[in-house]
């Protein structure tokens, strides 16, 4: 094992873990806790990534006085100019980063809110399929929409920390940014889950009719959950686009959604810590395979295919053998419940 860069490996694993953990946490909130079978995670992820990519590349060129009609960021001149101008002004880079995080949260959340309208009145089967097909349509749209680079996508997106000369320091700092966002997402989701709203969500998942009869406005609640979940997914997309510094339509295939599903099913649906664990395990295997694949040389069967077969079978096997996952869902400890338990002990 000559040249196995252990620090680089850990940094790249944690970065990927941070992004995917945001996906799996929000998916768990939507699907594991409130029963919206979201098969279209990739829609909001893609929207977030493309918004930040488009915004950053266009604005950097415009603010540096480049004529974007002649040198749009998706052609070769634009890419070269972006490479030259991209990391000159730290304030601009960080400002654009914050702006894109906000915008992608709002836009992805709003799209999620709108998409909740057609799917409110139908069961989980239809919800899942509608969102899944939305993802494919988004991809087809991006593949043919010239201003965002069509099938080539956008390249040379300036990283907000691109002005730091040393790449290891830059990667570590960006990792800290990602983990901070992950911590924020986890806190928000945890607070939501432990609030009265969280318990309403669980009641909607377990029995929609009963929740409706108890006077809960189920459509409004589902729309709200999709807004919050999709917003955070959009932020994850933003983080992804700055990490890879390029986006193209083929990054946003339904497989991304399935990856997140495998994580929450493995970790345990309805348990937020479980999603973190699932994300950590699956991204670790992912990264290990990426590091090992070149060592195997040319094989008849690509290890990538085997990986996907394993992910698919993992979902099926876990659902059959242990549907509650590694960390099963726990009842929420409310103050009232604790008081009752104490009274019972006496």
């Amino acid at each position: 094992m000559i040249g196995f860069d252990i620090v680089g490996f850990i940094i790249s694993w944690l970065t990927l873990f941070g992004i995917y953990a945001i996906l799996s946490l929000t998916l768990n909130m939507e699907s594991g806790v409130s029963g919206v079978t979201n098969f279209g995670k990739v829609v909001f992820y893609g929207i977030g990534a493309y918004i930040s990519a488009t915004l950053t590349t266009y604005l950097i060129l415009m603010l540096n006085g480049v004529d974007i009609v002649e040198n749009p960021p998706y052609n070769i001149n634009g890419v070269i100019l972006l490479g030259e101008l991209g990391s000159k002004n730290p304030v601009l880079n960080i400002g654009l980063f914050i702006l894109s995080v906000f915008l992608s949260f709002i836009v992805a959340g709003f799209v999620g809110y709108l998409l909740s309208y057609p799917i409110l009145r139908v069961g989980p089967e239809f919800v899942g399929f509608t969102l899944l097909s939305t993802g494919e349509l988004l991809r087809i749209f991006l593949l043919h929409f010239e201003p965002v680079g069509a099938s080539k996508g956008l390249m040379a997106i300036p990283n907000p920390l691109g002005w730091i000369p040393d790449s290891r320091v830059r990667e570590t700092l960006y990792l800290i940014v990602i983990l901070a966002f992950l911590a924020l997402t986890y806190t928000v989701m945890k607070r939501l889950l432990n609030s009265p709203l969280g318990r309403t969500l669980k009641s909607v998942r377990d029995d929609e009719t009963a929740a409706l009869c108890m006077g809960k406005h189920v459509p409004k609640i589902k729309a709200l959950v999709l807004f919050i979940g999709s917003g955070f997914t959009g932020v994850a997309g933003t983080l992804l686009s700055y990490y890879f510094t390029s986006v193209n339509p083929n990054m946003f295939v339904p497989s991304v959604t399935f990856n997140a599903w495998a994580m929450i099913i493995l970790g345990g649906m309805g348990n937020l810590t479980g999603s973190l664990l699932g994300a950590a395990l699956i991204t670790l295997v992912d990264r290990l395979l990426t590091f090992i694949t070149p060592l195997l040389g040319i094989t008849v069967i690509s290890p990538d295919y085997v990986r996907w077969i394993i992910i698919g079978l993992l979902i099926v096997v876990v659902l059959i053998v242990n549907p509650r996952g590694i960390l099963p869902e726990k009842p929420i400890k409310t103050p009232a419940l604790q008081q009752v338990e104490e009274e019972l002990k006496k």
Partner: protein
Amino acid sequence: MIPGFTQTMVNFLQYIFFYTVFSLPLTLSYRTTKVINFVHANFITYGAYTAVFLHGVLGNSSIVIAAFLAFVIVGGMAVLDNLLVFTQLQKRGSSPAMVMISSMGLWIAYRYLLYVLTDIMHFYTSKNFVSYGRITYSDIPSISLAEFNLSQAFIASMVATILVVSSLYLILEKTRMGRAMRAISDNATLAEISGIPRNLVINLTWFLCGGITAVGGVLWTSFSGAITPEAGDSMILQVFTIGFIGGLASLLRTSIGAIIIAFMENIGIAFLNTYLGVPVSFRPFLTFIALLTTLILFPPLGAGGGLPYRFRKRGLSQ
């Protein structure tokens, strides 16, 4: 009049045939087994690849043999899925959403398994199976109407559609098996009480549905210029939308849905392209609009366990 009108009309008819063969089994399987089956996409692809491997590896050029083998293989695949996964989950009392998620897991596994198979076959024959050209079959007669030559795909799929529709009608209306299937789709518990062997009937339904879809896949090989392991996945939007138009319950309405979607995707987009300059590749958006319209205006009530919300001025909370 739009340019290429005759060709558009022929394609319109052609797609009606394909969509009917693809989506009737989806509706039938959902209403009998209550499993929304994403593996349906794999049924199409595996049907097509049965024909491709028979042609590329064994040199078969008979569509009858290919269709028969595809029917048996994919039908068996569907029964295996049911026995190993869906029945196990339902026995454990999993919710329909969980069964759907498991079918999604199977979908991924099958899809990449096919890539592995194409890789292995490529290793042995060094032919490109990831994008396989149109197959010319030797046992389809060539017919020309007036000055117009009908393609092989058109003749084969027309015959197959007529066969599928009429045999489904005969099975469902005239045989004991069909009556049992209809009884189970109406009320499974009552059907079981009155002595219908439920598991047997459900397995037979899966066999039939998988088989018919696979025949559709074989027909696709005589039409499509490039058969890829994602052939079925790229059609899943249309097929499911057609199923939803039929409410996943009525076979007649599913057939009407096939005509509507085929119309929008061929004649509708041709009009939009000619008069408004909409690119032809945006064709799936029309289907998606049809899907949203179906869900908003005619929500398939009860079919997926949804609640009949109505948005009135006075909200539900009052």
